[in-house]
C-alpha cells in the first residue's frame, strides 16, 4: 500500500515506523550491518564495542540508530541477553553523572525493558525513591539499581548528541565522564553506539577519559547516485511508478542533479525537496518552494545561533559569494587579519559548516550546506525575488525550458491584462521576474529575451498564442499549454481551437474528465467540428466507453463519410468486442481510403493475426513500419507478431527498432503494460523453439537491447512471465527442453538481480519436474514455494 510522504518525519526519524526506516536506508546499509554484528559479538564474547557516528545535521545518524535499535530489539538470536537503553534524540539538562544515570534508567523504563531474571524491580517507583536521597546516596543507589536491572545481560546504550552530554558547560563535564567511564570499566557489560555532529574535545584530547574509546565512523553526504536511489525509494513508497521512471530519464536525473547541488546531498533536505522534482510549472513550484524555505528558516537559524559573531560574519560572506573563496579574500572582506580568518575557518571546518579545498598552497573555503543562505536571504515579500529560488530555477530547468516558460508567461500576462484581470496578471508578473533573473544569471549567452516591461505591448495576436501553444505541445509542456489555452478561450481571444488544444493538453496529462469537459463544450458550441468529434470519440474509446465512442465516431461519419479515423476507431471497437469479421471490413476500408495511415495497417495486422490470416497480417505489419519507421508502436506490434511465429531473429530486430524509438525524455507513451506482454510472448516462443546453442546469444542480445533503465523493467517482467508460463505449460513442453533452458539460459541472467527470484523459481521448478522429489521445493522460502506450487499445481 503506497504511503504518503508525510509519514516520513523530516526532522525526527526516531518517530517513524521501523519498517519504513529500514526500507528507506540508502548508502548506510553496510554500516548498520556492521553495528548489528558488533552488538551480536559483544553479547556472544563479552567484548566491548563502542561506536561514535559523526555527521552533520540531516546526514542520517538518527535514522541509522533507529534502524539498529529495531534490529536488535527484534533479534531472536540475542534479545533475551540484552537490555537496550534507547535515549531520546535530545537529552537536555544532563548536568551530572547522576543525571545521566537517571536518564538511562528512564530510557529503560520508557521502552519497557524487563529487569534481570529473578529481580522484581519497579523502575518508575525506584526512580522516584532516588529523589528522596542525598546526592551522593542517590548516585550510589542509581548505580546499584542499574547493575541489578541489567544483571548478567549486555546493556546496549544508544545515544545521540554525545558531545553535548559530555560538554563541560552543557553536560556532565569531565567529572561526570570519569565516573561514567569508571562504571563502564568496572562493569564491562556495555555496548555504546552514540552520535555527534562533529568530533569533540572530550573524545579527541589525550587526557580526556574517553580518548580513543570509540570507533569513529563518519557519515558523509549522499553523492548523486545515492541521491537518485533515495528519491526512487520515496517514489516507490508513494506508489508513484511514473515518477520512478521519470528519475531514470535524462530530464529526471537533471532535476535530481539540481536538487543535489542545492542541498549538498543532505539526505534530510533531499526528502524535503523531493516534492519539487516533478513539478512542471514555475507557478506550481514557487509557492511551495517559498513555504518550504520559510519552514527551514528556523532550522538554519538555530544552526547559526551558537556561532560567535566572527564566525557568523564569515558564514554570511560565504553565503553571498556562493563559490569557493580563498582565505585572503575572506579576511579582507570581513575586515579581519588572515591569521584570524584562518583560525576561525579551521573551527568552522571542524564543526562542519565549511569545506576546504587545497589548490597548491592556498585553501579555498565554501559552505558545506548551501541552504544556510536561508538565514541571510532577503525575503520575497520585501519586493525582491528570493535568490535561492532563482538559483534553484537556474539549475533545475534547461535554458530552452526557461525561455519557453518565459515566452508563454509573457503571453499569459498580456492576455490577463487585456482582459482586465489584474490579480492574475500580477501573479504571472512574479513568475516572469524569477524567470528573467534565472535566465540572466545562468544562461546569459544567447539571451535575447527582452525585459518584462518591453514585452507588455497590448493584447496579443491570436496567431502568436496559437504558435506558442503548438510550441508548448511539441515540448510536452502541457500545464503551461493548458493555462494559455484556457485563458485565451475564456477571454475570447480566439475560437474553438483553444478549447481543442486545452482538451489535448489535459488528455496528455491523463486528466480525462477535464479533457472530456472541454470537448463536450466544444461539440455543443460547434456540432460540425470534425476534429472535436474525433478527439472526443478517441478519448471515450481509450476510457473503455465503447458505446459513447461508437456514437461519436458515427457523428464523425455523418460529417465525413470517408473519415479514415472513424473507420479505424469503429474497427478497433469491433475488435475489442470480438467481432473480428466486422473489424476486418472496417479496417480494410480504412487502409484503402487512407493507404498512408500506418496505424490502420498495424491494427489491421492485429485483427488478421487473430483471424488466422497470417500472411495478410505479415504484409500489414510490414506496411505499417514502412510507412511509419518512427513509430515505436508499429515496431512493437510487428515484433510481437513475428515472435508468435517463432521468427525470433526478426522479432528481436523489431524490438531493437522499438527500443531505439521509445527512449524519450519521460513524457512519452506508457509501455508499462504492452512491452512486458510482448516480451513474454516473444520469449515463450524463443524458449520453446530456438536451437539450444543460440539461447545464450539471444538472451544476451535482449539484455543489450533493453539495457536502458526505462525499458529493462519491461524485459524483467517479460522474461519472468515467459519462465512462469513455461512451467505452467509443462505438460506441453518436454522436461528435456526445460532442463536445456535452465542450463543454457539461467546462467546468462546471473548478473540481473531483478531476475534472481524468477530464475530461482524456474530452476527449482525444473528440478522438481525432473526428479519429482518434493524435497527440492523445500529449498525455497515459504512465499516462493507457495507461488511455485501454484504454478506447477502440485499438492501443498
Amino acid at each position, binding site marked *: 500500500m503506497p504511503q504518503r510522504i508525510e509519514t516520513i518525519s523530516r526532522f525526527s526519524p526516531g518517530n517513524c515506523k521501523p519498517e519504513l526506516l529500514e526500507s528507506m536506508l540508502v548508502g548506510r546499509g553496510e554500516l548498520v550491518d556492521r553495528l548489528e554484528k558488533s552488538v551480536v559479538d559483544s553479547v556472544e564474547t563479552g*567484548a566491548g564495542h563502542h561506536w561514535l557516528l559523526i555527521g552533520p545535521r540531516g546526514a542520517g545518524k538518527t535514522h541509522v540508530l533507529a534502524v539498529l535499535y529495531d534490529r536488535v530489539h527484534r533479534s531472536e538470536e540475542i534479545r533475551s541477553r540484552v537490555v537496550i537503553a534507547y535515549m531520546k534524540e535530545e537529552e537536555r539538562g544532563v548536568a551530572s553523572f547522576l543525571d545521566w544515570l537517571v536518564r538511562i534508567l528512564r530510557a529503560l523504563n520508557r521502552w519497557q525493558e524487563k529487569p534481570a531474571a529473578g529481580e522484581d524491580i519497579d523502575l518508575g517507583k525506584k526512580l522516584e525513591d532516588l529523589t528522596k536521597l542525598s546526592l551522593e546516596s542517590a548516585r550510589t543507589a542509581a548505580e546499584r539499581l542499574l547493575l541489578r536491572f541489567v544483571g548478567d545481560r549486555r546493556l546496549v546504550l544508544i545515544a545521540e548528541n554525545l558531545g553535548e552530554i559530555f560538554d563541560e558547560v552543557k553536560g556532565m563535564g569531565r567529572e561526570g565522564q570519569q565516573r561514567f567511564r569508571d562504571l563502564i570499566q568496572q562493569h564491562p557489560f556495555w555496548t555504546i553506539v552514540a552520535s555527534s555532529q562533529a568530533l569533540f574535545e572530550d573524545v579527541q584530547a589525550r587526557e580526556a577519559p574517553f580518548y580513543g*574509546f570509540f570507533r569513529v565512523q563518519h557519515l558523509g553526504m549522499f553523492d548523486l547516485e545515492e541521491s537518485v536511489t533515495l528519491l526512487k525509494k520515496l517514489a516507490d513508497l508513494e506508489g508513484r511508478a511514473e515518477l520512478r521512471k521519470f528519475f531514470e530519464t535524462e530530464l529526471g536525473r537533471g532535476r535530481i542533479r539540481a536538487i543535489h547541488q542545492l542541498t549538498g546531498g543532505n539526505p534530510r533536505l533531499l526528502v524535503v525537496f523531493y516534492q519539487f522534482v516533478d513539478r512542471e510549472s514555475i507557478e506550481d513550484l514557487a509557492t511551495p518552494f517559498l513555504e518550504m524555505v520559510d519552514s527551514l528558516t528556523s532550522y538554519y537559524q538555530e544552526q547559526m545561533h551558537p556561532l560567535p559573531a566572527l564566525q557568523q560574519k564569515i558564514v554570511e560572506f560565504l553565503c553571498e559569494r556562493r563559490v569557493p573563496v580563498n582565505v585572503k579574500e575572506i579576511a579582507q572582506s570581513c575586515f579581519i587579519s588572515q591569521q584570524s580568518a584562518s583560525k576561525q575557518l579551521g573551527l568552522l571546518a571542524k564543526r562542519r559548516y565549511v569545506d576546504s579545498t587545497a589548490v597548491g598552497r592556498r585553501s579555498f573555503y565554501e559552505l558545506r550546506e548551501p541552504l544556510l543562505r536561508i538565514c541571510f536571504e532577503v525575503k520575497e515579500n520585501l519586493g525582491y525575488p528570493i535568490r535561492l529560488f532563482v538559483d534553484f530555477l537556474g539549475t533545475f530547468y534547461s535554458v530552452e525550458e526557461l525561455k519557453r516558460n518565459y515566452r508563454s508567461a509573457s503571453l499569459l500576462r498580456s492576455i490577463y491584462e487585456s482582459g482586465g484581470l489584474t490579480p492574475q496578471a500580477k501573479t504571472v508578473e512574479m513568475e516572469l521576474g524569477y524567470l528573467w533573473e534565472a535566465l540572466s544569471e545562468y544562461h546569459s549567452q544567447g539571451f535575447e529575451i527582452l525585459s518584462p516591461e518591453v514585452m507588455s505591448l497590448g493584447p496579443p495576436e491570436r496567431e502568436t498564442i496559437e504558435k506558442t501553444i503548438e510550441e508548448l505541445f511539441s515540448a510536452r509542456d502541457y500545464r503551461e499549454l493548458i493555462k494559455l489555452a484556457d485563458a485565451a478561450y475564456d477571454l475570447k481571444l480566439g475560437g474553438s481551437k483553444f478549447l481543442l488544444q486545452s482538451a489535448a493538453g489535459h488528455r496528455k496529462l491523463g486528466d480525462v474528465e477535464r479533457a472530456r469537459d472541454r470537448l463536450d463544450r466544444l461539440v455543443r458550441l460547434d456540432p460540425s467540428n470534425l476534429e472535436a468529434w474525433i478527439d472526443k470519440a478517441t478519448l471515450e474509446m481509450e476510457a473503455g466507453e465503447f458505446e459513447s465512442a461508437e456514437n461519436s465516431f458515427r457523428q464523425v461519419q455523418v460529417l465525413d463519410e470517408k473519415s479514415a479515423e472513424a473507420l479505424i476507431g469503429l474497427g478497433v471497437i469491433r475488435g475489442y468486442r470480438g467481432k473480428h469479421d466486422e473489424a476486418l471490413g472496417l479496417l480494410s476500408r480504412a487502409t484503402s481510403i487512407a493507404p498512408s495511415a500506418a496505424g490502420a495497417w498495424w491494427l489491421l495486422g492485429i485483427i488478421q493475426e487473430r483471424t488466422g490470416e497470417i500472411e495478410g497480417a505479415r504484409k500489414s505489419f510490414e506496411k505499417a513500419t514502412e510507412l511509419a519507421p518512427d513509430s515505436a508502436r508499429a515496431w512493437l506490434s510487428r515484433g510481437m507478431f513475428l515472435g508468435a511465429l517463432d521468427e525470433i531473429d526478426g522479432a528481436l530486430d523489431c524490438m531493437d527498432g522499438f527500443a531505439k524509438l521509445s527512449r524519450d525524455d519521460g513524457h512519452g507513451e506508457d509501455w508499462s503494460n504492452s512491452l512486458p506482454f510482448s516480451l513474454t510472448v516473444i520469449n515463450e516462443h524463443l524458449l520453446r523453439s530456438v536451437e539450444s546453442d543460440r539461447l545464450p546469444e539471444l538472451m544476451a542480445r535482449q539484455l543489450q537491447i533493453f539495457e536502458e533503465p526505462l525499458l529493462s523493467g519491461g524485459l524483467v517482467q517479460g522474461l519472468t512471465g515467459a519462465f512462469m508460463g513455461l512451467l505452467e505449460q509443462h505438460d506441453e513442453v518436454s522436461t528435456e527442453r526445460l532442463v536445456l533452458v535452465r542450463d543454457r539460459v539461467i546462467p546468462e541472467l546471473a548478473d540481473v538481480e531483478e531476475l534472481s527470484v524468477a530464475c530461482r523459481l524456474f530452476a527449482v521448478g525444473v528440478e522438481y519436474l525432473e526428479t519429482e522429489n518434493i524435497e527440492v521445493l523445500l529449498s525455497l522460502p515459504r512465499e516462493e514455494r507457495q507461488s511455485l506450487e501454484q504454478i506447477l499445481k502440485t499438492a501443498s
Partner: protein
Amino acid sequence: MRPIIGGNVPPDRVIGRDDSIRRMWRSLENQSVVLVAERRIGKTSVIRKMAEEPEEGWFPIYMVIEGLRSPTEFISRIVEQVTPILSERQKDWSRLQRIYDRVGGQTIGSWELPELKQSWKQILASTLDDIRETFDERVVFFWDELPLMVSNIKADHGATTAMEQRAAFFQDPRLAREGPLSGPQCPRRRS
C-alpha cells in the same frame, strides 16, 4: 576476529602480552608494580587479564578508580569489591564496624560508607586489617587510573589530603606483600 577499539577485551582475546604478564607476576612476589604506557596501548586489558586469570596463590581485586574523588569514596570502593567475598567466607568488617560503632553508630550494611573525613586513615587501616583476616591468599589490588583519582582528590580536597592518602596506602606495612598494580605515573613502592 573482530577488532575491539576502546571497549573491554575478554582475556582470551588479549594477544601478545604473555611474557610481560609473567614478568609482572614474578615482580609482585617482592614488590608492587606500576604499568606505565601511552593511552590506548592496552594497559587495562593487560591488568584485567591478570585479574581474571591470576596465578596460583593470589587473590586479585580489580578496581577502576578514575572517577573517585575522595578518600572515603576510595575506601567505599574497596569495601564494595570485597564485601561479597567476606560474605562468602563468612567474615565481616569487624574492625571497620568497630570504628563506626565508636564514632557514628552506623552499620556497614551497604557499600556506601558514611563520610568521616577526619578518621579516614583509621578507617583505611581497619579495612586493610579486615582484608588480611579474610584472605589466606595474597591479595593483589589492581588499580586502574590511580593518578587520576589522586588528581581528583587534590582538586577537591587539597594537595595535602591527596598526598596523605597516597602515602597512607603505599606505606602501610599491611601492604608489604599485597601490592597495588596501577596505571601510569604511580610511585614505585619499596619492597
